[in-house]
């Protein structure tokens, strides 16, 4: 009995000692070879969801307004469709490509050409694929000889390599995606990267497999990049089941470093990352076409048409007041015009008559005929010196306008040798002064395209009253009219 007790005690002691030894191992466990890859990322060149919807009912051949079925498909509205995009409409065998012209409302959009016969059946597919390049970056954790890098990207369950977007994964596409395998990393050489669609040879269903094998041993902490895409890309998923517009669908991508072929490429290190795909936001805004025209005063002392102005104008008057006789009295107004209408704009000028006392059209200061009696409302002439004969005229000073019929600085033709090239102001009055009779309004600034900025010019008025001019307050009316090009 004592011996038995002694034996039990010995066994118990041995067990305790054995367990104590194991505890020591637990405290200082032996390091394993497996670890996580670090700094892992999969960057998509576009994270837009693909579009996969179907036609609603009631389409006839030739229509351009397309109505989307609002149930039963991954895409049930026009969200994530954009003007100018290509869409495939029709059944899977005879579908045609169309261009989105505009988004009409939440379930209707227009196409630039009429819907073809055969593409107009209710339930025909409406597809817009969005393909992305995956740039996968990671840092190795282990030095593994003659191993491989493998990227697993979720595929859909069915039809995951037919070029049609899936609602549950990335489609492999008709053509094998372009690959750029890793380089460097301390290995002796990299073999050509391979791509295998889901359920292909050595690739289990559920993921597309992308592999890059290497010879030699990689460095620990080697930063590597594996690019999947280029000329040929994976097709992004369509919205998943229960998708809410504006909320991303997420997919898990796995990055693995495998052991050597002699060990049948066991997974040594593995890390997963999440990638998200979401609709793009459609930003819409309407810019109304308008035309804006401004007449502004110009003050005394300002230089316009190379003249220091004697009078301050207002936006509605050129108030000469009491004139200096037998000398030039100069004033100006500034005109500004801008439009975003495609054809541009034009501004014209016309008066009701020559200056007359109280506007009576009888006792007048005649429109100038310039220094050499050779200017009219359509022909420019030099008016630099003749200030002893009454006259009223104008010139133009380009600030940043595009087109004008003449400038004060013109020195050709009748304006040669002068510093102020002038004209009569065209007038609607009848035969008040030949040829100043029922003139056409003169276009003084214009543009046939959309100006890049507001365009400005000075209209410079010059008035001379000779010493024999009948006393009185002389007046007339000048009208500037701005219109868009038709």
């Amino acid at each position, binding site marked *: 009995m004592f011996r038995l007790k002694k034996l039990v005690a010995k066994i118990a002691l041995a067990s305790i000692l054995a367990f104590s030894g194991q505890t020591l191992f637990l405290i200082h466990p032996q390091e394993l070879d497996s670890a996580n890859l670090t700094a892992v990322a999969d960057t998509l060149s576009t994270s837009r969801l693909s579009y996969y919807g179907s036609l609603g009912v009631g389409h006839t051949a030739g229509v351009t307004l397309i109505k989307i079925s609002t149930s039963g498909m991954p895409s049930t509205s026009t969200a994530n469709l954009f003007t100018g995009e290509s869409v495939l409409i029709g059944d899977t065998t005879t579908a045609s490509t169309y261009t989105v012209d505009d988004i009409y409302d939440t379930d209707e959009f227009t196409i630039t050409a009429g819907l073809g016969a055969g593409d107009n059946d209710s339930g025909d597919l409406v597809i817009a694929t969005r393909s992305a390049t995956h740039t996968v970056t990671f840092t190795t954790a282990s030095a593994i000889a003659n191993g491989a890098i493998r990227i697993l990207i979720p595929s859909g369950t069915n039809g995951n390599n037919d070029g049609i977007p899936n609602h549950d994964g990335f489609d492999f596409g008709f053509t094998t995606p372009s690959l750029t395998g890793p380089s460097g990393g301390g290995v002796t050489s990299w073999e050509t990267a391979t791509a295998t669609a889901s359920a292909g040879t050595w690739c289990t269903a559920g993921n597309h497999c992308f592999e890059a094998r290497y010879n030699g041993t990689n460095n620990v902490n080697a930063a590597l990049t594996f690019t999947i895409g280029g000329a040929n890309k994976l097709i992004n998923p369509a919205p998943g089941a229960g998708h809410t517009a504006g909320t991303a669908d997420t997919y898990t991508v796995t990055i693995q470093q495998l052991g050597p072929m002699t060990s049948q490429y066991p997974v040594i290190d593995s890390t997963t990352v999440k990638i998200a795909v979401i609709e793009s936001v459609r930003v819409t805004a309407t810019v109304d076409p308008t035309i804006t025209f401004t007449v502004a005063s110009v003050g005394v002392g300002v230089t316009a048409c190379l003249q220091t102005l004697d009078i301050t104008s207002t936006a509605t008057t050129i108030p000469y007041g009491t004139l200096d006789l037998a000398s030039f009295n100069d004033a100006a107004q500034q005109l500004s015009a801008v439009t975003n209408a495609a054809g541009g704009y034009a501004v014209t000028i016309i008066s009701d008559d020559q200056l007359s006392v109280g506007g009576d059209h009888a006792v007048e*200061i005649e429109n100038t005929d310039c220094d050499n009696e050779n200017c009219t409302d359509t022909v420019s002439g030099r008016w630099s010196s003749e200030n002893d004969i009454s006259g009223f005229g104008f010139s133009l000073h380009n600030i940043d306008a595009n087109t004008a019929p003449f400038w004060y600085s013109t020195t050709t033709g009748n304006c040669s040798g002068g510093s102020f090239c002038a004209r009569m102001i065209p007038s609607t009055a009848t035969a008040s002064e030949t040829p100043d009779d029922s003139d056409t309004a003169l276009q003084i600034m214009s543009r046939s395209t959309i100006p890049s900025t507001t365009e400005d010019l000075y209209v410079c008025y010059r008035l001379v009253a000779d010493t024999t001019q009948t006393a009185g307050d002389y007046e007339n009316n000048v009208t500037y009219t701005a*219109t868009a090009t038709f």
Partner: protein
Amino acid sequence: MINRCKLLTTIVCISLYLSFYTPVQAQTVSLSIWPPILDVIIKPGKAVTQVFRFTNNGDNTTITASIVPFEPADNFGHVKLSSTPSPATAYFSLQNADLNLPATFALKAGESQELVLKIRVPDTAPEADHCLTFLFDSSNLGLIAGTGTKTQGSIGANVLLTVSKTGQPVRLAKIDSFTLSPCLFNLSPCLLDSFDQPQFKFLVKNTGRNRFKAVGQIDIRNTFNKKIATLGFRQDNVLANSSRYLTSDTTWNPVFPVGRYQATAAITPEDSTNTVSQTLTFLILPYKALLILGLFWFFFYLIKKLKN
């Protein structure tokens, strides 16, 4: 002494104030209108309305709105207001409860006024095109003491109205001219320098009774008959019995072109199949550079000969 000092200070202050005047540029007449153009095809007996928004960005003013006929001022789409009465002005009215055409209303600085323009075409109205401007005149309330000119700012929105029983008026076009510049000595075919910028001018005439929008382009082919550029025309309105230069949205900027080229301009009035086209053949050579090289060679040859 104190009084003299005060007087001197006052004089200096007034002198400084008068010396440093600021030119006055505050007052403005500033008018803005949306939309700048309205394009309507309407059947007799029908009506259409359009809201025009007029904004006064300048000082307080009084506006008079009216419908005025216009005619083309040139071949570039600019407007010449006409004093010839148009029967179509009777088709226009305002839906605003308090305004009738011609309408006069006061508008303070920064305020806008929306005018609901109704176009009602009588059942008996003949088929025709009407070109009108919805004109807004700001009143010239400026008072002049002494001699002066009262100026008035006006702004207009163009209304292109086509009365058509079918809604599909016949639209016919003819090419008035299709030219290229700068051509050396106006030779035919045109000879351009490789370093010059080719400029096409395309004038189209509306030979029908109704206006149309011109849809078309210029296709350029090289020596090997390969299409190398397409310059699309802006879809401008060409009024009946008038001509208009069409503008391309893009320019042709070839890199050192050499050889024989062909440019074919084709336009089709919108909603019609009446396409008209014209082809222009031209040559592009670096003749200026060749001329300079030739002169260099000539002088070199001359000097060499003289030395010998």
